[in-house]
């Protein structure tokens, strides 16, 4: 095992990100999609903090990550409300039922 470097954290972030994307793409459950979003955000966060540690980004990376976390919480609250509304309207949480985007 070599020295833990920036690349290792970035790899973790990438995996999280990809998992999030796949999660979003495959889950029919609305809550699952939300979880995918959280994963994507976390992937990004890992990258930020890693850059904060290993490059001259410094405190900025952490600050941004902090913001992301806060905003993700907010997003989660709103998304949940949206999910509830969706559920109220369609009587299911299956996102495939909501095809209003088709226009």
């Amino acid at each position, binding site marked *: 095992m070599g020295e833990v470097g920036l690349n290792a954290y970035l790899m973790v972030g990438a995996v999280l990100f990809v998992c999030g*994307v796949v999660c979003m*793409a495959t889950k*029919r459950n609305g809550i699952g999609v939300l979880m995918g979003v959280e994963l994507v955000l976390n992937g990004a966060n890992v990258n930020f903090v890693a850059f904060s540690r290993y490059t001259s980004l410094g405190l900025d990376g952490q600050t941004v990550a902090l913001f992301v976390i806060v905003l993700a919480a907010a997003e989660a609250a709103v998304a949940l409300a949206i999910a509830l509304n969706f559920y109220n309207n369609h009587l299911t949480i299956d996102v495939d039922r909501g*095809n209003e*985007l*088709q*226009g």
Partner: protein
Amino acid sequence: MPETGDILMFLLTVAWLLPLAGFVVEIYWLCFSHRLNKGAAYCAVACIGIGFLCSLSALLYWGNDTHWAALSEPDHHGHAASHDTGHGDAAHGAGGHDHDAHAGDADQHSHDQASEHADAPAKKYYSGTYYELARFGGLRVSLDWYIDSLTLVMFTMVTFIATCIHIFAIGYMHDELTEEYEDHEVHLHNGGHFSRPGRFHRFFAYLSLFSFSMLGIVLSGNIFQVFIFWELVGLSSYLLIGFYIERKSASTAANKAFIMNRVGDFGFLIGMMILWTSFGTFQFGDRTEGAHTEAGLFTMVRGHDGKLDVSEDGKQVYLQDAHGHRAEKNGQPLTISYMLLVAAGLGVFAGSIGKSAQFPLQTWLPDAMEGPTPVSALVHSATMVAAGVYLAARFYPVFTPEVLLGIAYIGCITLFIAATIALVVTDIKRVLAYSTISQLGYMMLAIGVAGWGAALFHLVTHAFFKSLMFLCSGSVIAGCHHVQDMSRMGGLRHKMKITAYTMLVGVIAIAGLAIPGTSIGLSGFYSKDAIVASALAYSELNPGHILLFIAPLVTAGITSFYMFRLWFLTFAGTPRDAHVYENCHENPSVMTTPLLVLAVLAAGCAWGGEGGPLYRLIVDSETVPAAARVASVGAAKVILPSHQGHESDVHHVHSTAGMLALVSAIIGMTLAYLLYVKKTIDPNQIRQQFSGVYDFLVDKWRFDSLYDAMFVAPVHIISAWCVSFDKGVLDPILHSAANLTVLTSKWDRAFDETFVDGLVNLVGTVTYNVGNSLKVIQTGRLRQYVMWIAVGVIVLFGALFTTIPK
């Protein structure tokens, strides 16, 4: 002490402008006064009356200033000068006997050159400028005044007659003083009679306007100004002839008068153009500005010796400058082509033809009798129509003998034609109208045969007796309640004594009767005598033109015949229409007084004949060429007789001519007496025997129908052509251009729609189809979109990695 010229100018200007002020006041009176008010009439009478007083005092002042030199001539000093124009009798006594008077005194004002050239005859005029209308470089047009004895006489005569007629008109137009004037000659569509508010004020306003314009002509100091007032009298005449605007005949006659005059003015304008272009001035007299004297028209043509300075080949006339030398410009002598000078003369004379109703423009004057009778008296006999003669006389120095020959023949033809028509007319005013034309013909003839003084002499005497006769006829018409046809009158002398006998004075005057063996007669005798004498002298010198003597001689008889016919038919014999006779009455004194005054003047104004004061006054203004014997150099080869002094051509034949004319007149009178009083010969029989001639004369020599066919109809046809050219040629060209454009744009549209639009549509269709086929991708499913995003990122990165070199 102001100079004589300025005083004269001031007095005459006042006399001239007062009627204009009167016109303005009366027009406004019309708006604010009620119609029963005679104020306008009094205003008009006051204006013209004061004008008369001004003119008279101007005349007297002038006479005093010149010590009445004009009235005396070495060989005629026996005559008392107690009458000037016959009305200012006691005003001046001793002046006429002052033989030592210097004519040159009058020249101090503006004619220093007269003394420089002692041989040049003194030119007895004053002139000056009111104001400039325009100035173009060296050319200028202005309003001027020009005063000589002729101006003064004309002024006095015009204002006096106008005053009389104004007063007469107060009575004549009395029935217009109403709110409801019923016109029995107008019939409405519904068969009723036409009634309208009276037009008393308007009538006097028009009369004032006329007086102003007429005096303007007389006072004018340049030909352009004459033209201006020429048109203005035409306007007044138009307004007065068409006074009864509701009568179609009146308005048509007014139009006819105006347009006929315009035809004359067309010639006038051409004459003016020639003069303007060749001479560069319109001025009659010379104009002095400081040290520089600018020659007027008369000086330029005639110089100081009164001779035309014709080049050797006879084709050019040299113009003279103010000092009697040939005028030069840039070293070249100024000349005018002789033919152009003739043309200019004829052109100006054309204006006279129109205004004085000479052949071939004579037809408007009889129609002009549609106006109220005082108008006929003032405008269409005494003054305006005489303005043509006045202009011809004023412009005499510019006329070449050829022009004069033309004038003579025009006058000759006119006097004969008009007299013959007058033989058969039964409308009392029309007889007088034709007589006026005929008498004006006499005057023109006189000018043409160099009887300059005779023409103007006749002008003044004619003005008196003709206005008298018109007023008498007006009195008859008013007395008979607007009956004008003589065939319905007769015996009126019992009921209208004053009118009848004053009329007789006029008739005798115009007929030229005198006591045989003596030379005592009424005014017409002297003046006609002078004309016939001039004509005889002329025809003796130019035997080829004997007609110019025969025609006036014969016509003198005809004149006498138809005038007595008029009097006999109207006043003598027995009434032919009982109704008319019963209702007729003599008029109030406001109408008869002017008759009496005018009768006195008609009888006596020419007192003394050619030795008398009137003639002397007029001849005082005579220009040199009119007095001396002149031989023509042009194509016509005529010789103009001289007529001054005992040795003159005219003097030789004077007694012969007088005798012949008198005989002719007496024959005419006797014939009339036999036909209409004694009834020895039945006029109807003659009429039937010569029915062809009679009809021809009744149709006024068929001039009206001739002109209708020659001018009126073609004008209408041409105007129809013009309109159809617009509608049929120009508009179709435009329309076809427009249609062509529309057609082109249609093609353009077709091209657009098939080709250009086709291309565009193709693009659109392809896009649509592609989009349509891609539509399935948009499922609206969230998860698919995420997938697509991921795929997109992959593809993008893949593309980047493959294309960007490491």
